[in-house]
């Protein structure tokens, strides 16, 4: 148990360092340009149960901006000496307190569920957006992940999104027999 906790603390520290780099390197104006205006409009609109793929069907991005951000997330990921995922979340324009994923790298993540289009920013997500500080998510979580959030600022200094850095905790060691 003690070894597991030490491991988690070490991973948390590493992700915290990566998050600090991310908060400097990720350009908020570029982040906001990734999702097209039309796609954002459909994301902000209430979901229509009769046409549940509508927003997905209109989802589109600025190809060059996305690719630059994807490569940056891939490089950030390499700063950790263990496998982690890096995801850029941006505020949904026109829908207060909601985030949508703009770019993701790797499969580890704490908040994204497959096909999810937006989520309400609560808990540590709201804290990161509100304080503009690197924020560690609680370690106790059913996903058994370590997560640190890095705020993303634009040229006006406004926090427009965040980078989620998540790694899976190693499986607990099996108790010795006898």
């Amino acid at each position, binding site marked *: 148990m003690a070894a597991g906790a030490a491991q988690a603390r070490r991973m948390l520290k590493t992700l915290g360092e990566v998050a600090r780099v991310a908060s400097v390197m990720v350009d908020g104006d570029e982040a906001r340009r990734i999702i097209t205006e039309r796609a954002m409009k459909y994301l902000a609109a209430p979901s229509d149960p009769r*046409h549940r*793929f*509508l927003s*997905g*069907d*209109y*989802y*589109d*991005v600025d*190809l060059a901006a*996305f*690719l630059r951000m*994807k*490569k940056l997330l*891939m*490089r950030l990921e390499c700063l950790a000496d263990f496998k982690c995922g890096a*995801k850029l979340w941006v505020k949904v324009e026109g829908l207060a307190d909601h985030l949508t*994923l*703009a*770019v*993701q*790298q*790797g*499969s580890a993540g704490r908040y994204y569920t*497959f*096909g999810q289009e937006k989520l309400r920013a609560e808990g540590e997500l709201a804290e990161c957006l509100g304080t503009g500080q690197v924020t560690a998510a609680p370690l106790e979580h059913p996903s058994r992940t370590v997560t640190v959030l890095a705020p993303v600022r634009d040229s006006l200094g406004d926090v427009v999104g965040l980078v989620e850095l998540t790694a899976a905790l190693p*499986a607990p060691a099996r108790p010795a027999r006898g």
Partner: protein
Amino acid sequence: MTAGGFRLSAAHEWVAHDPFGRVKPADAAAQPEGAAGAPGEVQLRAARNGYASFRVLVTGAGEYRLAASARCGLEVDLFKAWYHRMHQAEGQPAAWWPDALVPVHGGAAFRLPDPENRIEGQTAQEFWVDVFIPPEAKPGRAAGRLRLTAGGGATELPFSVEILEAGLPDEPCVQMDNNSYGSKWLVGLYPEAFARAASGPRWQARTIELLQHHYRLIHEHRATFHNLGAGHSGGFDPIYGPRLAGRGRELRLEGWELFDRHYGPLLDGSAFRRRLPGSPPPRRPAAPVWGVYTPINPDWPASYLWWGEPGYGVEFTRGVGQFDAHLRANGWTGSRLEFFFNHKKRYRWFEWDGDEVKYAKDDAYHLEMGRLLKQATAGSPVKWVYRMDASWQMKNQFDRLAGSTNFWVCGGFLRWYPEEVRRVLGRGDIVWWYGGTPSIAAATSSILQNLFQTWARGLGGFCAWLTTSPGQDPWFDCEGGTTAVMYPGERFGIAGPIPSVRLKVQRNGIQDVDLVDRAARAAGRLEEVRGSLAQGVPLRLWEPPPRAALELPPEDWDSINLSAEHEPGREPLPEPDPSWWARFRQSALAGR
């Protein structure tokens, strides 16, 4: 004919009964000829190297035994139907319909009501009877019987098969494909198999074994199975591909053991010589699987970090070249190796749609990938194909990606483009379409609609987009089974998948198509016969596109302005007479 109060009666393969002996309402209007003639008599006609089927209904109460036998080398398989309790909306009466088929062996003991199926007051049990006519069987009439024993008495249901001179080809003329994604679902369906194999080599061994069982089951039912390894992120389990070592000019593929164990028997066909657990021996000859997905994706074997830079092409051609060399070295050149991108931009891993491209600008990525694939595999005897699952942009892509994409799996919008599809087929591309699977509650013959539309349109195949996901509780709270045509056998002590009524009805339909197709081709009348059979079927093969599709670019289409769904299984099926296939079968058995 009764024994201990039990009664045996026969029913056509397209007519299902509930656990009280009542015909399923959706099948009630069916008046098929042939299978069940006069009461107590079953007359079948069948080609050699194929199956003929019917249902047997046991009614009564208490314990009984049931066995089947036949003469003249015919082989008879018996399956007990499971009655799925359908999901019940508030205020609706309970309903049970048969679909999963549990293989049973000669003289097995049963009870009515069936304690496993837990249906209060159950008075009837359906069994499915498959009669296999070996290729060497002598044409003529052969007899068989079902024998029920109970309470010291016995009753029999005789059947006869008119064995035709015609024999079915080993390979079907259309591919009815059953798709699946990844392997995590196996853990949920086979908890016992994975109880002590949660990870590591045991997990890998169990997973490979179970996946191969799925390929076996589907192969025996004259169809194909596909299992996609790479997820939208580009990651995949090591059973789907080797490891990467080095980078750039030094990139290497290493550690082929798991890939070889997984795919080797599929690619050389030896997997199909092995018996599926609990099932009859394989009858369809072993052959390399029609095709398999590869793990190649935008981030493997080349790192996406280098996309657009010289390093990407270097890593791609080195990695794919080594993949190709490994296949050649093993002689795995009989199957199609599918270069396929499943990711969608809406899931945010990549900026372009690999699957169902919505925006024309994304085709540039496909063209570049096609160029790299050609460069990496030039002159190879491996049957590489560039597969594109196309929907919104298919009409434009047929031209834009000509010479690059050569395997099209098209959504339902294909019905708007008969001329374009003919042109693509004419240049030698493979064209399939995709869709869903009818519900268990629908008319039994509904499963044949996709098959008919495939053949009558002249397409090479149909991909049912998901066929291994029977739902949270398929046994007692069934949502309709529209994403499954097979079920886990663990509940019945079988360490592999078991078939369904729908899968067997489809197999019999494929046999019919093969007979009609071969006879029509031999007579040089294929188009004429297609047209003639289509005329009698109330299914539309082609239709004009809606106004929005003519006036707007695909980028601006949606399900509202098109009044059409592009997602499989979202549009209601037509409801023709439940015996609508009878004319097709008559043609098949008449050899015309």
